[in-house]
């Protein structure tokens, strides 16, 4: 029985999470569950508590109210929003992958390859471009063979095509590792294309469900305003691409996984 229930048990279950800072409620009664293998995206405007919720989930922040239950022995891969490496710290991409545990060269090379940056092992972290840097963070996160990969606004600082490529990379990683993915973003259209479930957050959970359900929800439209019309169209377009292999669309070239262009 424990085996069965272990299989069924969510990777992370958070209930009734409340976080208050300096008298302001940042999160109120937020509940979230992540099951094995699913892709969940949290969307919300700036200051809606997205990063705070992630920090609660990974255990970096103790909520004032509520409980977080992680599956025992849960392996987390975490890609932070940004990593400010002080210029005084010499650190190659290869050495960064060794934190906190040394990994064999072959595994490190494999991870860099999976993340889409095979040739930068010897480069200094501070010299990498935004896209390369995020991919090295991704490579490090997948080295621990995570059951749950958590990405906090991982495409910040990337342009739109760069972000789209990065998300396709994550889909590929997810297929390879068969892990669950929890993403936070405000870039709705690109993110939602891959998600099984979208949670719309603004201090509390406004609405939740499949991308279709959420994008049609009044609460979502209210939160993101009229601008979502265009974004939504783009989302649908991406979404179709992700799930069928029909190549008769006039813009197939978007579908290929190999990023051949340099980021602009």
């Amino acid at each position, binding site marked *: 029985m424990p085996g069965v229930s272990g299989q069924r048990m969510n990777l992370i279950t958070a209930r009734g999470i409340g976080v208050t800072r300096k008298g302001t409620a940042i999160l109120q009664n937020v509940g979230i569950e992540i099951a094995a293998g699913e892709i969940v995206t949290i969307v919300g405007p700036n200051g809606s508590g997205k990063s705070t919720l992630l*920090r609660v989930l*990974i*255990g*970096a922040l103790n909520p004032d109210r509520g409980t977080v239950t992680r599956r025992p022995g849960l392996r*987390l*891969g*975490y890609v*932070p929003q940004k*990593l*400010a*490496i*002080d210029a*005084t*710290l*010499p*650190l*190659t991409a290869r*050495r*960064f992958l*060794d*934190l*906190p*545990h*040394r990994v064999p060269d072959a595994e490190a090379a494999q991870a860099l390859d999976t993340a889409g940056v095979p040739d930068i092992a010897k480069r*200094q972290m501070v010299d990498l471009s935004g896209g390369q840097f995020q991919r090295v963070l991704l490579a490090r996160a997948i080295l*621990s063979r995570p059951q749950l990969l*958590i990405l906090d606004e991982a495409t910040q600082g990337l342009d739109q095509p760069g972000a789209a490529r990065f998300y396709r990379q994550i889909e590929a990683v997810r297929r390879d590792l068969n892990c669950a993915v929890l993403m936070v973003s405000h870039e709705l259209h690109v993110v939602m294309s891959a998600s099984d479930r979208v949670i719309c957050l603004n201090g509390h959970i406004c609405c939740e469900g499949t991308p279709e359900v959420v994008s049609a929800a009044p609460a979502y439209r209210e939160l993101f305003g009229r601008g979502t019309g265009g974004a939504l169209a783009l989302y649908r377009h991406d979404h179709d691409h992700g799930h069928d292999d029909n190549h008769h669309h006039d813009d197939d070239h978007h579908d290929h996984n190999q990023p051949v262009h340099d980021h602009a």
Partner: protein
Amino acid sequence: MTMTITITINRCTTMLDDFLIRAALAAVGTALAASVLGCFVVWRRMAYFGDATAHAAILGVAIALALNISIFAGVAAVSLVVALLIHRLSDRAQGTDTILGVLAHGALATGLVAVTLIPGARINLEAYLFGDVLTVTRTDLAVIWVGAAVVLTVLWFHWSALLTATLNPDLATASGIDPRRENLILTLLLAGVVAVAIKVVGALLITALLVIPAAGARRLASSPEGMALRAAVLGVMAALGGLVLSMRLDTPAGPSIVVTAVVLFACTTIGGKLQAIGGSSP
């Protein structure tokens, strides 16, 4: 006393009679611990934190004299309390700079006042402000080397965790490392180094011994470990070079060590720049 010592055939023991040898060993031990820990001080931008902890050492000296306990113990205890205080305060408030300023100079001034108030104690305050490495005793030497060994051992075993926590606390948490614990360890080590270094360079120049060798090693290294190793080498060179300088020119030893470290820093930085220019040209 002299009799017993001269009788000993142990060359090591005889060697330790020489105040110069003792001074050199004390300076080298201190430099090793300070320069390696100093890398973290530089990476985490804790220089001011180091200053505050070190300045508090004077208050420790005053307390040690008043209670008639070991100077090392007094300094270590007060530095620890101040370091923990800053550690706590800097966790919640944004204006850390101001808090550090208040604590650093508050502890220094209080210490200076307290030392003069202690009845009967006529001490050479300069020795604690700028160090007095030429007067280290064998007991001092033992304390310095045990302290340095402890600092280096803890750094060795916590290297990866400390490095991960330095990069990003949340990244560390997700990897199962408690960043607060690692911060606390650094705080404790800093207090330890302050206690070890007070005899050698004095309260006012301890931060220099932490920061300057590490900064000098930056341009020479391409990995964190490489930087720590080179910082240690530069630190030892500064310690020995400073002592030689002090002997030749009859200058105070502590400041001479720091001056040597600054000269080495200038050399590696300019050398590194030249190398970068040379490397980039086809």
